[in-house]
């Protein structure tokens, strides 16, 4: 036993030296906590986009000599699950930053817990203006929260008004519309802004209805839309089952074209998923394979090469957020929240969909050069064509097959 003591002592000393706090801290990776509804495509792409960015950054040596690592927690579509995910990531995994969030209702429930943990949060999926409004109301408490993606629903409403005015009214000659939207926070935030803007522009809203996200038979709603005499149907769906909605809408052969915001229709495989019955539907998208910035096409092609499919809008959101975070850490020279927040507040970073710059409430700006909304229509052969804005359009808007030309 005595002979063993020197060996054991040496082994113990080596272990202590290797595990000394200074050395461990130098090598310890920067840990990104991803909160996302991982059973949904939007959630899977939050993870996929972030992982792609992490790999790119690590391949170039990481940030401040440290590699990036990530841990995922499922926030589902349920506020309770979301709060548990945040608490796990911050209290158990001790992540350096949180990047994710999809449902506005879930993110709003998570925010007090994010603030309490004093961890910077970069949102990439939730659209309610209230997500960042808290920063304006109580800066000291909520300054950790930023929205990188998507544009908030008020900004989306502004761009939707532009689409209705320029495409629906001027190009298609339709001034009387109906609105069908799911009963969700972001839609209820969006619709009042939309109504005000449309009425100011001489558009008549003949019918408006919010429906439950769990609804599966929309035929009675379509009958009411038809009876209203509307000549265009504006749809606003994020969480509801839009596959069924669009199929039933197509099979209803409503005597009017339709389009708007349909989050699931942003999926690259949506058209084939619904058996081609989304032909004629126009929906917003935040990115497509077009030279929006010098980073757009390399991102798109890189994503397709890596995952053998096209990304949905949360993928560039997650990708941008990770690169933006790495940029901010380099600029701040630390991962500590205080200097990092200052760096992010001063950021003017070129992302995949445009420049990323935050307003006073830490919400991402929209407009020329910044992030924008594209209106993309499913056309013959399930091809996606950008029909608005004019400067990025890759084709003209078409009508649904049964409406003629």
């Amino acid at each position, binding site marked *: 036993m005595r002979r063993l003591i020197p060996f054991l002592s040496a082994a113990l000393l080596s272990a202590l030296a290797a595990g000394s706090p200074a050395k461990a801290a130098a090598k310890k990776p920067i840990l990104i906590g991803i909160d996302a509804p991982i059973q949904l495509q939007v959630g899977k792409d939050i993870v996929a986009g972030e992982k792609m960015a992490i790999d790119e950054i690590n391949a170039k040596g990481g940030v401040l000599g440290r590699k990036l690592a990530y841990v995922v927690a499922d926030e589902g579509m349920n506020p309770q699950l979301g709060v548990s995910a945040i608490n796990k990531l911050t209290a158990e995994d001790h992540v350096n930053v949180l990047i994710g969030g999809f449902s506005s209702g879930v993110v709003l429930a998570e925010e007090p817990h994010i603030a309490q943990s004093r961890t910077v949060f970069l949102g990439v999926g939730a659209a309610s203006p209230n997500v960042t409004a808290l920063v304006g109301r109580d800066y000291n408490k909520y300054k950790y929260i930023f929205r990188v993606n998507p544009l908030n629903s008020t900004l989306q409403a502004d761009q939707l008004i532009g689409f209705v005015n320029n495409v629906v009214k001027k190009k298609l000659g339709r001034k009387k519309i109906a609105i069908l939207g799911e009963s969700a926070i972001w839609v209820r935030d969006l619709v009042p802004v939309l109504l005000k803007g449309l009425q100011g522009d001489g558009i008549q809203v003949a019918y408006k209805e919010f429906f*439950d996200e769990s609804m599966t*038979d929309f*035929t*009675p709603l379509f*009958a009411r839309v038809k009876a209203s005499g509307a000549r265009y149907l504006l749809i606003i769906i994020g969480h509801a*089952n839009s596959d069924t909605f669009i199929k*039933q809408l197509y*099979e209803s052969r409503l005597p009017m074209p339709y389009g708007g915001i349909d989050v699931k229709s942003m999926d690259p495989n949506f058209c084939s998923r619904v058996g081609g019955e989304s032909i004629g539907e126009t929906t917003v998208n935040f990115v497509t394979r077009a030279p929006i910035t010098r980073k757009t096409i390399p991102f798109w092609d890189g994503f397709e090469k890596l995952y053998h499919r096209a990304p949905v809008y949360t993928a560039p959101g997650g990708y941008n957020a990770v690169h933006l975070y790495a940029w901010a850490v380099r600029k701040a020279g630390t991962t500590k929240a205080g200097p990092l927040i200052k760096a992010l507040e001063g950021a003017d970073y070129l992302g995949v969909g445009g420049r990323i710059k935050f307003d006073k409430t830490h919400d991402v700006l929209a407009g020329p050069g910044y992030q924008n909304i594209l209106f993309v229509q499913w056309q013959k052969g399930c091809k996606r064509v950008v029909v608005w804005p004019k400067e990025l359009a890759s084709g003209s808007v078409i009508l649904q097959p049964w409406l003629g030309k």
Partner: protein
Amino acid sequence: MLTVLIYGAVTSAIFAMLAVGFTLIFGVARILNLAHGTFYALGAYSAFALTTILKVPLLPAAILSVAFVALFGIVMERVLVRPLRNSALAVLMITLAVALTMQQVLFLVFGSQSKNVPAFINHPVTIHGVSVDGQRLVALSIAIVLIASLWLFIHRTRVGSAILAISQDAEAAQYMGIPSNRIFSLVMGLSAALAGAAGVIAAPFLTVRPTMDLVPMITAFSVVIVGGLGSIPGSILAALIIGYSETIVAFYWNPQWTGAISLIAVLLTLVLRPSGLMGKPISL
């Protein structure tokens, strides 16, 4: 008005297909099968897998899907339910476990995204100026044919007589030489086939996703409670009442309230007529 009549008939027919199978297995084997919605989901997913992944033409795919679900029901009865049949609570638990497990299996195999099942007819049909989705009319026709065939099978064949005998007194029927276990398996297969067929014909115009089993399960349960547990005519009558009530509410009031119709009907039935509209302990 004609729109409501047609859509109400389609909704009622789907409800009836779900409820008749559910009540049949209860009437004969006294089993409350909480995996009944799973049969519906499996029918839809089988049709999707066969038509979209394996490129099997729709009609053979539909027949194969129904056969697969029937087989699934028979295996489930033989392997999981039969050993526990002496305890109603154990049967409830095992069928609930099957439902939850299959939901997760569908999640893992097919993912969370909705799936598209092709329609037999994917263009509208105009009836007296009312445009109706063609697949809904196909669903209505198939439902009527299947329920009528089941009725004839039970009341006009020797096996049907055996089913009736067991539903009236399982023990006495067994003493008379009727192989009750084989009849239970057959009835479970029929019940599963009906629900699976409902899934196949409704899938093109309703939702195909892993959680699609829950609403049909609740609907079947509600229809059977209103109609009377174990009564096939009661289930058909209740399916018509609830189906038309939901359609009228959806078209003339608010589609969001349709889910409340079943619950109100169940509550009223339990308060006013607990045995249901045509419920007798032993009636098929």
